[in-house]
């Protein structure tokens, strides 16, 4: 566990000393801020907001955006995680140190999760503003954050995996973007399919599990889904690391 935290700390540090994490966070905040405003005005409650009642819909809007954009940002965040180490060769030092493969992957993943948490915490000024100028229902807001955290961690796990299979960061980002898009897309397709298949599709979709969180429902089914995606891809990353020893 110690070594996991050591690697996570090193990863977090290298995120914070390179411009990448800042740029991603800025763009994420910019986009989610713009959509927050758009949703707020679109719901027409903005005019009466000062003393009025603000629907959680405005935060619902934010979380909808988050659930679409967050996976893509996650792909960019994780693309260098392992591929860069492979490319510059520090990989070789990491794998010849007395550290388990699992510890390497978990450490890397937790490092990127740290940045994701920072990104989410920075968006909290949206609910804060709502709370100052209105009386929003905080329940759905917190569950939305939980949902964003879970969907984000699934996306980071996918990114960790794709970063472990290549030395090219761009390929890592594109492949994880592709996997995430596919997982998101099956949810949309499920609307036009016969019920039986649609149920399967919507169950494996990243986006359909999010809707409960955004309206304030915590369903263990959804939590387990996101945790399984995370675990599956982290496991795949560990295996891919093992495979590299066989070359």
């Amino acid at each position, binding site marked *: 566990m110690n*070594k996991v935290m*050591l*690697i996570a700390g*090193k990863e977090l540090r*290298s995120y914070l*000393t*390179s411009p990448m994490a800042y740029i991603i966070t800025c763009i994420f905040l910019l986009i989610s801020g713009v959509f927050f405003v758009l949703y707020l005005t679109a719901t027409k409650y903005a005019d009466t907001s000062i003393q009025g009642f603000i629907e959680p819909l405005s935060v619902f809007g934010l979380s909808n955006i988050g659930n679409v954009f967050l996976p893509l940002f996650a792909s960019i965040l994780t693309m260098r995680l392992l591929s860069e180490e492979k490319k*510059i*060769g*520090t*990989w*070789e*030092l*990491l*794998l*010849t*140190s*007395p*550290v*388990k493969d699992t510890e390497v992957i978990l450490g890397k993943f937790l490092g990127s999760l740290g940045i994701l948490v920072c990104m989410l915490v920075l968006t909290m000024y949206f609910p804060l503003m709502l709370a100052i100028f209105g009386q929003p229902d905080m329940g759905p807001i917190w569950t939305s954050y939980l949902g964003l955290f879970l969907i984000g961690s699934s996306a980071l796990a996918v990114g960790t995996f794709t970063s472990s299979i290549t030395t090219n960061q761009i390929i890592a980002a594109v492949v994880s973007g592709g996997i995430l898009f596919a997982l998101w897309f099956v949810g949309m397709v499920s609307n036009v399919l016969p019920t039986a298949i649609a149920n399967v599709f919507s169950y494996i979709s990243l986006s359909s599990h999010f809707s409960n969180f955004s309206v304030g429902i915590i369903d263990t089914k959804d939590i387990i889904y996101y945790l399984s995606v995370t675990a599956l891809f982290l496991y795949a990353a560990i295996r891919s690391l093992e495979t590299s*020893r*066989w*070359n």
Partner: protein
Amino acid sequence: MIKVRNLTKYYGERLAVDNISFDVGKGEIVGLLGPNAAGKTTTMRILTGFLTPTRGDTWIADCNMVTNSLEGRKHIGYMPESVPLYTDMTVREYLAFFGRLRGLDAKRTNHRINDVIGLCNLEEYVDSIIGKLSKGFRQRVGLAQAIIHEPEVLILDEPTVGIDPLQVSQTRSLIKELGKEHTILLSTHILPEVSATCGRVIIINRGRIIAQDSIENLSAIVKGARRLRIEVKGPHDQITKRLQRIDGVKKVSREGNYLIVESPIQIDPRAQVTEIIVKSGWTLLSIETVEMSLEDIFLQLTAKDKEESDSE
């Protein structure tokens, strides 16, 4: 300290290491010598647990690196050929990370950092960003990283490649210094490196060991011949002809301004050579016996190895 038995590694179809076995005893400095693509790096990567062998076993400090790699890796300090570094870290941060990763506590890590920067002459640069250091200093940081956790075994892949001559000699003396406390296996394709640092050499070519012995013994094995280098003023063609007539001289050849006289080791033609030259009225400027260089040994051994495998 290092034990290798019947080690074989295939990359897909390509055979990189072919059934090699060797030992490195405690406190030895052993050179793994071979041309590029001979299998040196692959061997080292298997020894450090970075790669798994196709067949065979390796032991580091009595830990089997195939079945118990995690334990074995604690005893290894490794510097890969490319000297990989986190270029956005300072030297101190980098060393601290690997110290902690290899199981030192915070206090011990700090203590060791002070030790190794002293040893590797990095005092001035300990708080510099690694990316801004020159190649020679990066090499030292790589070496410092390998010894930070006081491993019993040091594995250094081409430790002096790409640095300037002064730094090369500094690195070599550092390696010799480290050899007092560590068992060292280093690879190189530069021949003088082996004679400058190693007590024993393992020559490897196309995945196979073609010779392993102390440097003195190796030269004795291949020697069999005495070589005299003569500098003489006079018509070289005539001199060559005259010298060839001496009993026992096998060959006289020109090498730049010198003549090389080869004879079996039992025969010493020096007296006759000088006599002939002086009597014929030529001027003898110098005469010396030349030791066979490692380069010659190497060429001869690889050529032999090639002949044998060709005739198979």
